[in-house]
């Protein structure tokens, strides 16, 4: 007559295949508040590495359109600024499949003509296996070179000839 060590309430219960550790994050949206400072820090480091400083009007938006997303812009053209400025952005989305998608773009706004010219200059995806295993440091280490490369490519890119155009019409506002 012995005790059953594998009884559900036994303190000596041995690990079974079905006794998996519950994941740290139930969904990408839940993980995003932990991921966001990591990605922001990596972008910051990457910008510093290529000597882009606050002189370049760096700004960032989070949770765009209620998604687990981040966009960082620098030298962004403004309507009040008439000289030609090439704006640059890198954006990140942790999608529903736990893939971190990344985009880079350069653009120029011509408010006199009401036209924007945009060129997508980089796109990348990163696995988030480490993140899902609660390994934030491992996730940051694996992501660092990808972010560094993307930021560097965006910073050195020019519009060239292969760009898309879109209108910056204010008419929908003016006639409302």
């Amino acid at each position, binding site marked *: 007559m012995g005790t059953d060590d594998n009884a559900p309430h036994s303190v000596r219960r041995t690990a079974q295949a079905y006794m998996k550790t519950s994941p740290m994050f139930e969904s990408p949206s839940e993980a995003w508040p932990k991921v966001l400072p990591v990605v922001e820090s990596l972008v910051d480091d990457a910008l510093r590495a290529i000597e882009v400083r606050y002189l370049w009007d760096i700004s960032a938006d989070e949770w765009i359109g209620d998604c687990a997303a981040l966009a960082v812009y620098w030298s962004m053209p403004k309507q009040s600024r008439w000289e030609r400025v090439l704006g640059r*952005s890198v954006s990140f989305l942790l999608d529903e499949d736990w893939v971190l998608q990344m985009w880079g773009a350069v653009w120029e706004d011509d408010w006199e003509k009401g036209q924007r010219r945009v060129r997508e200059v980089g796109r990348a995806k990163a696995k988030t296996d480490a993140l899902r295993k609660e390994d934030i440091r491992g996730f940051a280490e694996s992501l660092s070179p990808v972010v560094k490369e993307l930021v560097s490519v965006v910073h050195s890119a020019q519009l060239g000839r292969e760009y898309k155009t879109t209108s910056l019409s204010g008419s929908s506002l003016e006639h409302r």
Partner: protein
Amino acid sequence: MSDPGTVPNPHMDWTDIWEFGSNHQVRAALTAQLYRYVRRKPFQDECQEVRDHSYVPTFGGTWLSPDRYDSAAAAKAGLALPELPEHRIGPFWSLDVVFDGISLRASPPRFGEVGGGWELTTTRRIPFGERHKLT
């Protein structure tokens, strides 16, 4: 106004607004109707619906636009959204919204989209709006 792209304090009367007559965008922003474009179902929305049927943002700011899009693809491209929105909520009368986040601006290119639509954010509560399913 030193910066025509800046939306002024909305706590102003109609005389103040009239003085912006030469600045179409600022005047229009003050008198415009605004919309939200959201991806999720109402119960998973990024805003919480509070007792008086207004919304308060759950994460930071609420994104609004004076541009009315009828299709999800057009909203995604124009507002450079990360994913296709499922619903358009609004209109909201802009004078009922406190502009304390990102000032009215053309959406920068991001997430592989060209942007160019108008956007702004608020961290304050916004009125309840009708919800329309986007095609």
